């Protein structure tokens, strides 16, 4: 049994973005103060979450319960290693993206910036809430807050295209929320609790196999935020949002909340043993494998950079689902470390796409010929991210793929190993043309942009520094050092918990 300690730190960590959001709204007329609140809230939240790491590393679980909503369901936070991993990823990247947002929004002179920062803080509130929740009902509350608060960000441009994207976004995600609520209620009526417990809360004896299968499908439909095919199309459409939104929310917070939910369901609601028994693991893994391959194929055909990255995200998210579905320790390790690693790499790529947009106004890959020479730092960071996506050393994507590969071997399934390799190959096929075009493509835009009296150069420092940091971290994670050790330790503890000690 894990030792638990009572602490209000999870609550404080949640309150940071919430009160930040209110302060942002109140100081809407003074931009500097408003952005100050964003930065303050993000830094404070990150340090609070960081301060929980030693306790969790010591093998303890932090609990913070408030009141009982229903018999067996408390409203409360339980911080375990896995939840903390997701919270750390979201909050650390929020700090960087806050700086980036300032550069991005000011350079482009976007409208409705107060709404933007307000909703951004609220979305982080939802995401970190999801990460720290102790049971499904609490998680659902934050999950829905996350969905709703992201809508204004997706529809930010207020053009008819953006409005359409927003509507599509809500239609998909709130529908999925309904499935999730149904699934949670059903779980509660079967198991009498919705706490995340080691080894799961459902048992084979508690309901018939078909009910458990249907319930699992309901859960999958409920976590449509994970953007698996065929329920993925909201994600590329949502790319009309400002780039920092695509970066943090549609590469980390929102989509990972979906994946996080699936991992919670597999590991803590159903339990590894029962997944084996019901044969759900192999089903889920095949499903994820399909997404990994098909999404990559979609990505190859896409010319808009952000949309290509979105398809890449869809594919990479399924790596995480896939790893967990393998139900082998190595596979789950690969899945869990892919959450922070993919977060850092993908955010680098998105931030690069954003700074290209800010510096040159270009959105399509075919227009980016030779841009690497004008924006060396940005494109170098992009290359790092892209190498990581393909799983090449010395970037951290290599490590997660390595573990995933070992996981397939542990699960004795060579077909799945082949899937990983094919998918990596496809990653190479859609990423290398970008790098090639950027660095070696023929510089076409020179005359026209010179004629406009404007030469393309690096984006403002507010933007370049965050993306360099994420790129550097993507490399650092690949080598043994204290930061990587912390992540690996957290994952190891999480897996020990999963298997019941």
């Amino acid at each position: 049994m894990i030792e638990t300690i009572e602490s209000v730190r999870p609550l404080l960590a949640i309150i940071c973005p919430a009160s930040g959001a209110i302060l942002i709204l109140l100081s809407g007329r003074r931009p500097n103060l408003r952005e100050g609140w964003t930065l303050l809230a993000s830094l404070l939240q990150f340090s609070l979450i960081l301060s929980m790491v030693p306790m969790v590393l010591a093998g303890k679980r932090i609990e913070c319960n408030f009141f009982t909503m229903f018999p067996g369901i408390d409203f409360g936070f339980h911080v375990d290693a896995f939840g903390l991993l997701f919270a750390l990823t979201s909050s650390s990247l929020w700090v960087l993206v806050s700086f980036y947002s300032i550069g991005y929004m000011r350079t482009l002179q976007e409208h409705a910036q107060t709404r933007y920062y307000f909703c951004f803080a609220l979305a982080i509130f939802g995401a970190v809430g999801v990460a720290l929740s102790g049971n499904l009902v609490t998680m659902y509350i934050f999950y829905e807050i996350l969905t709703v608060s992201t809508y204004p960000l997706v529809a930010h441009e207020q053009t008819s295209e953006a409005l359409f994207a927003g509507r599509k976004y809500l239609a998909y995600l709130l529908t999925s929320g309904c499935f999730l609520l149904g699934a949670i209620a059903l779980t509660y009526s079967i198991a009498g609790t919705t706490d995340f417990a080691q080894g799961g809360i459902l048992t084979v004896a508690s309901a018939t196999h078909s009910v458990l299968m249907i319930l699992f499908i309901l859960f999958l439909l409920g976590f449509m935020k994970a953007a698996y095919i065929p329920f993925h199309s909201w994600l590329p459409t949502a790319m009309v949002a400002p780039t920092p939104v695509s970066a943090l929310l549609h590469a980390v917070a929102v989509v990972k909340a979906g994946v996080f939910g699936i991992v919670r369901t597999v590991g803590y609601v159903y339990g590894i043993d029962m997944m084996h028994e019901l044969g759900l693991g192999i089903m889920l893994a095949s499903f994820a494998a399909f997404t990994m391959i098909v999404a990559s194929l979609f990505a190859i055909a896409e010319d808009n950079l952000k949309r290509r990255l979105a398809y890449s995200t869809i594919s990479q998210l399924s790596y995480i689902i896939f790893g967990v579905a393998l139900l082998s320790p190595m596979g789950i390790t690969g899945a869990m470390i892919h959450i922070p690693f993919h977060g850092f790499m993908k955010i680098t790529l998105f931030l690069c796409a954003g700074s290209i947009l800010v510096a040159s106004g270009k959105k399509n890959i075919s227009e980016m010929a030779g841009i690497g020479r004008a924006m060396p730092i940005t494109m170098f960071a992009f290359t790092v991210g892209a190498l990581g996506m393909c799983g090449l050393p010395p970037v951290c994507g290599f490590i997660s793929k390595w573990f995933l590969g070992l996981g397939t071997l542990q699960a004795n399934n060579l077909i799945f190993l082949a899937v990983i390799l094919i998918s990596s190959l496809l990653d190479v096929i859609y990423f290398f043309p970008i790098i090639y075009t950027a660095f070696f493509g023929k510089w076409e835009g020179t005359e026209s942009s010179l004629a406009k009296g404007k030469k393309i150069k690096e984006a403002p420092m507010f933007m370049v520094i965050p993306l360099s940091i994420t790129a550097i971290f993507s490399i650092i994670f690949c080598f043994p050092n204290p930061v990587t050790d912390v992540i690996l330790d957290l994952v190891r503890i999480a897996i020990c918990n999963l298997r019941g000690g």
Partner: protein
Amino acid sequence: MISAVEHFPLLIVVLSLFSAFTIFVAGWFEKKSCVFISIATLVTQFILSIMILHHVLTRGPIHYWLGGWQPPWGIEYVMDALNAYVLIVLLFLALVCAIYSKKNIEHELPQKRVSFYTIYQLLITGLCGITVTGDIFNMYVFIEITSLSAYALIAARGKIALKASFTYLILGSIGACFFLLGIGFLYSVTGSLNIHDLSLLLPPLYGNRVVKAAFVFFIVGLSIKMALFPLHTWLPDAHAFAPSEISAMLSGIIIEIATYAFIRVAFSVFTVNFIKLLPIFDILCWVAATAIIIGSILAITQLNLKRMLAYSSVANMGYIMLAVGLSTSATNYPWGGLTPASMHILNHALMKGCLFLVAGAFIYKADLWYIADLRGLGRKMPYTCAAFAIAALSMIGVPPSVGFVSKLYIILASLEAKKIVFVVIILLSSLLNLVYFWRVIETLYMKREEGKEHSSTSSSSKNELPLSMLIPVLTLASLCIIMGILWLTKIPIPILNKVNVMFGLVGRP
């Protein structure tokens, strides 16, 4: 020793009645005084109702005999947990609407202020009367007082409202006739009109056809009053064309009081044992489920904001009646019995009250009736629109709002009753809610005003409501969140559970 509180049930009704006459007289001298008398009365009544609830919770039910006549002969007022709770909800919304009406009525009906508030107080009298009375015929009388004053208030705007009011008058009278027939049937077999007395006399007669017919008459009569689908046809016009505070009262309280009357008749006059003899509640569940779906679909087709809200009320009456229908088959604490139904009575009053008052605010400010005209108001009236967004999100059921809690409780109740189909219906209806409410939110905040492409800042100066209208709207909106969290903490649930214990629906937790 009789404490003073035991006189309050009568006092609440009488206060309101006297204030109606006072307003009428005072209005001759000073028109401005009407609204203040009305508000002062409502504040007093609200305080009294809180004291009644406190008394009921600490010392048990209050029985007040009018004129000292003993119950089977005289009229008795009975306060228990259920009607003490409903009374608070009713007076709270009435108070909020009265405060809101000050500016709005000055603007809309400047010539009719005196008669408006006179009738408004008569309406409150009727509503309080229905709630406090323990006598079935007395309840009928108060239902008629309520309806008559509602007809008059709806017609206040004249023109098309006259037609709406007339439709309501006809259908409402038919409903009242059914109710009266039910009373007559019961009287013919028992010779009693007192609710408690009836519940003692009826059990041996449960097999009697007359008694069964009486029950059906009650159901049909009250279904018209509460606009339960397919008897809702009077409601959309009446809601749409009444002055906005009356729309809020109609939707938030007047049709809900009919659901209260239904609960009272079904569980106090008849009892759980009678209901379990007949499959009537199963049928009720299905009718309510149809109401939820059809009401929502009809709401989607509306272009007029207030009509859309009106159809949403049809759907929400479906929610309440679905919860009532499930009350006999779900018995676990905390979602068993009547808890979800009585919970949604308050929740719907808050949400729909807020939405109608905001719709009224758009009419007050710019005479905007249609959803498509609301472009860009999110900038002009930020607080009002924020209130609308909160209440609309609550209707959709986004946590932690009141709508979410209602939804969750009804889902858990239907799961316990082993009726998965209603879970699906509730979830489907929240998606339909999403469709029609999001259209409004999108128009308010996201759609650009015509001819103002990319005019980002200061294109439209702020044009907020006066404070006396803004405060009621914001109060209701913030209560949508605060009550939602309170329900989740289960602090108010024991009050509702007393009702279940009283009707023998649920054991103690």
